[in-house]
């Protein structure tokens, strides 16, 4: 993910160590300066996200990364980035929670990532990779989307992906010099009117106009940027809805189920916001059940139920506390709904 960020044109990384994402920070410390960028291990998570605010305002592609408790600390900064329309990539390698929790893989930060977390009426594109090659792809995409829609974009991984090794083919690097100029950035006002980057508008009318404009961009994102994967859904009578690491496990379950004669498929949201409501709704009309599987107590489940709107059964299976669901346990749940 760190190399993908550098190749994605990131030239300013600010972070603070936390397991299970220390490898990202370590890689950045070794390689960012070689790419001609800035690496700073900040004094805290709060400092790191605010350094991102500064770098983003100066027009540089910037990133920070952390794990669950650290992301909670960064939320104030994320809200300010959203309020000031600043592009920034935030990687969350989710661990067990709440509180300090533990350092094992979990998906308990889905609500925090997709429903706000920070204060104010903002949205954040949230990308959920399931493999290391996809993490590379989505980190690079995150920089594109952040610049395109001017706001923070989160890559929501988990402790399993954070500690995993897989072969990847690295894409060609993006040269930051070739990116479109950011006319709004603070680059020195010589020969032009000064730009102002702020989230502070004391006049309600003025703030409302800024907010309405931003909401317009969010609607565009919902129309254009929904990404998901369907796997063996064509003939399926039961569907698993899962993202990230759990979606990988679901593929094993599908193989096991199909050898038992159960027509099982998978719908895997890649963008967790904007959520793929329409494809799920379409599936709901022709399957017996959509089983949501997560490493939490049922968070994405609420979006699944919103999409399905009681067109079919929507059971849930989850593991808590950093435990990872086993294919056998998921298959047992599937069999309760397969006719």
């Amino acid at each position, binding site marked *: 993910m760190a190399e993908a960020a550098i190749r994605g044109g990131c030239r300013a990384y600010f972070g603070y160590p936390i*397991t299970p994402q*220390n490898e990202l920070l370590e890689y950045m410390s070794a390689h960012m300066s070689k790419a001609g960028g800035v690496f700073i291990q900040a004094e805290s998570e709060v400092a790191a996200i605010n350094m991102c605010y500064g770098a983003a305002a100066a027009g540089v592609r910037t990133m920070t990364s952390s794990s669950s408790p650290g992301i909670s600390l960064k939320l104030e900064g994320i809200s300010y980035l959203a309020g000031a329309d600043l592009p920034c990539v935030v990687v969350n390698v989710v661990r067990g929670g709440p509180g300090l929790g533990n*350092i094992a893989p979990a998906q308990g930060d889905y609500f925090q990532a997709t429903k706000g977390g920070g204060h104010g009426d903002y949205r954040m594109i949230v990308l959920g990779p399931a493999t290391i090659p996809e993490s590379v792809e989505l980190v690079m995409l995150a920089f594109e989307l952040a610049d395109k829609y001017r706001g923070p974009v989160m890559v929501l991984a988990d402790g399993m992906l954070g500690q*995993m*090794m897989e072969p990847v083919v690295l894409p060609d690097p993006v040269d930051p010099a070739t990116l479109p100029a950011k006319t709004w950035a603070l680059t020195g006002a010589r020969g032009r009117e000064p730009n102002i980057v702020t989230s502070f508008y004391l006049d309600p009318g003025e703030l409302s106009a800024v907010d309405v404009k931003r909401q317009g961009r969010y609607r565009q994102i919902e129309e254009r940027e929904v990404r998901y994967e369907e796997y063996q859904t064509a003939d399926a009578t039961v569907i698993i809805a899962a993202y990230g690491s759990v979606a990988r496990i679901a593929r094993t379950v599908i193989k096991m189920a199909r050898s038992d004669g159960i027509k099982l498929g998978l719908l895997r949201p890649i963008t967790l916001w904007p959520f793929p409501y329409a494809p799920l709704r379409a599936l709901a009309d022709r399957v017996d059940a959509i089983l949501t599987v997560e490493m939490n107590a049922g968070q994405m489940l609420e979006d699944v139920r919103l999409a399905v709107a009681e067109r079919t059964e929507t059971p849930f299976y989850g593991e808590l506390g950093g435990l990872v669901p086993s294919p056998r346990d998921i298959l047992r749940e599937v069999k309760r709904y397969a006719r």
Partner: protein
Amino acid sequence: MPKGTVIIDKERCKGCGLCLLFCPQDVLGYSTEHNLSSYNFVCMKAPERCTGCALCAQTCPDIAIEVYRQKKTQEGD
């Protein structure tokens, strides 16, 4: 004298447990301690059963395991 022994670099180990699954002799287990990254690392729970087959080292994604084998002694030694 067991035929083999393994040395685990506890700071490289993230406790994924793949080696535990692969060990045919059930030699390995989790330590009660944690490393500097707070991972519950793996150690030898039944060293007397180790054959030095090195499956654990081959499966370790973090190259945290070194395996040593006893030299074969000549007959009668």
